[in-house]
């Protein structure tokens, strides 16, 4: 699979200021999603701005479908759809008018724009609000409309900066369904920059943890867990008065211990059974992305 999003040694510094992004490198393949996680001010938006060609990197390169965004921004814009918190749409226009206008700005014909807009408005559950002016939209609706705008020209790459902020659970699932369908059916590569790791967990196959402009770790959940030195929890539920040696007592008759790898689980269970313990339930407790993220960034990270 080819990498549709590719950054290599990306650096951005501002005059008289600290480094905003320091040597960030990652790749996102077609049909997959990459979660760039980091607290506010970590440099996520700067990475998106550079990838979308709005900001020129001080050093390094960033490519979208093989096109250098800083050198050929117009070409890159044809290939990617970008949603940032600061990129808004026109409040005096309705949802449909906004989409038609942006479609026309992409060189699409009026009729083609209307058809595509209708499809996206239905898919993102905004069809009933198509004639309402954007000024009257809720935050969640405006966010979904921004996503529809980014999808108007059928991009191969989606760059989404904080796509979940301000969304309710229902809107979140609509967005997730739309994105996973695009990844599955159209092979779209998605970059999700967020400070809410739990939101990106269901979609993203791999993550990068960014803090103060530096990519602290990069990889899938398992490799991030290992590199963070976090253990998997092996939990078993025993009889009421039973005691498991080497395990820590939890509530409800559960006992827990840390194992380095899930392959150690059968051995741990066999040892307990061999010791005469009756096991009613057993489960692996893998750390969630949020826990791994906290391990890297600290408890301040991921604050909503």
């Amino acid at each position, binding site marked *: 699979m080819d990498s549709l999003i590719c950054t290599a040694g990306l650096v951005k510094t501002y005059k008289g*200021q600290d480094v905003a992004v320091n040597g960030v490198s990652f790749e996102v393949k077609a049909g997959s999603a990459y979660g760039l996680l980091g607290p506010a001010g970590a440099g996520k938006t700067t990475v998106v701005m550079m990838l979308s060609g709005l*900001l020129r990197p001080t050093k390094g390169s960033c490519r979208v479908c093989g096109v250098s965004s800083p050198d050929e921004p117009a070409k890159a*814009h044809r290939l990617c759809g970008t949603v940032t918190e600061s990129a*808004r*749409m026109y409040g005096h*226009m309705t949802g449909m008018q906004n989409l038609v206008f942006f479609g026309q*700005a992409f*060189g699409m014909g009026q009729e083609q724009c209307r058809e595509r807009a209708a499809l996206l408005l239905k898919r993102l559950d905004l069809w009933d609000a198509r004639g309402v002016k954007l000024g009257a939209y809720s935050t969640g609706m405006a966010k979904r409309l921004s996503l529809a705008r980014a999808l108007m020209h059928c991009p191969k790459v989606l760059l989404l900066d904080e796509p979940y902020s301000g969304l309710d659970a229902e809107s979140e699932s609509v967005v997730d369904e739309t994105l996973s369908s695009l990844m599955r059916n159209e092979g779209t590569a998605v970059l999700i920059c967020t400070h809410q790791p739990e939101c990106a967990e269901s979609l993203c196959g791999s993550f990068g943890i960014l803090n103060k402009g530096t990519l602290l770790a990069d990889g899938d959940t398992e490799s991030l867990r290992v590199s963070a030195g976090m253990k998997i929890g092996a939990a078993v539920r025993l009889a009421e008065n039973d005691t498991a040696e080497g395990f820590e007592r939890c509530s409800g008759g559960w006992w827990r211990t840390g194992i380095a790898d899930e392959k150690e689980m059968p051995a741990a269970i066999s040892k307990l059974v061999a010791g005469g313990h009756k096991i009613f339930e057993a489960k692996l407790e893998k750390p969630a992305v949020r826990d791994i993220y906290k391990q890297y960034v600290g408890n301040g990270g991921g604050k909503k």
Partner: protein
Amino acid sequence: MKFLTPSENAVVKKDYNEAWSSMTVRVFSTVLPAFTAVVLPIIFFIIIYNISDTDTAAFRQITKLLPESAAAFGVKQKIFYCTVNFIFPIFFLLVPIMVASAVSACCFAGENERGTLETLFLTPLKPKRIFKAKFLGCISFAAIVTALSFAAFSITVSIGDILLSMPFFIDWNWLIIFFILTPAILLFCTALTAAAMCRGKGCFKSMQMSGYIATPLILLFLLQFTGLFVAGARTLLIASLAVALADAALVVAAEKSFVPQKLLFKPVK
């Protein structure tokens, strides 16, 4: 080759609608021209029509500067002539100044403030093309309002001319004002407002910049009442050319600064 691509045309249309949806632009495009092109000339005319024919020393000083063609006019006719040529140009020029400034403040600085300029920069339209489309949209909007205002003004003043048995008011001065000075001012105000936005000024401050062009022009016409000079066709032509030269410099500067990196990104302080 088409002057504007369909995408650029869409931006122009969108800017027209956006400008019209702004209350400030609507007031400047309707109430101001109606007041300066119709209401004020009528008020002035009623006052002049009812004035006594007595000549005063102060008035004689001013009328000395009038052209030979106006020498045979009566007192009322001379006062109306002075009003039409010394005062009404100020009122008339306020329309292109205010409308062009308001429209361009709305379409340049306003768009940046509302965060929609960033979204526009995310389309395949290059910044230069966006600038061109927006610039043409603002100029054409202000030009249409100015032309309509001049038409209304011409009808109003012509009625005054007929009632006072005077020749048609449009002379070389008015031709230069309408065909050279007004387009130069339209360009200047639009470019100045765009340049102000590129220098980080907000919508209101960008619009205030129009004062820089309005003040010297008002002075140019008002100084004629001192009786020291009359802004003839040559003076107006020189003033127009000076504004046109400044236009060229401003347009180049504004277009050069119209890039996402300069406009969108504000480093965290």
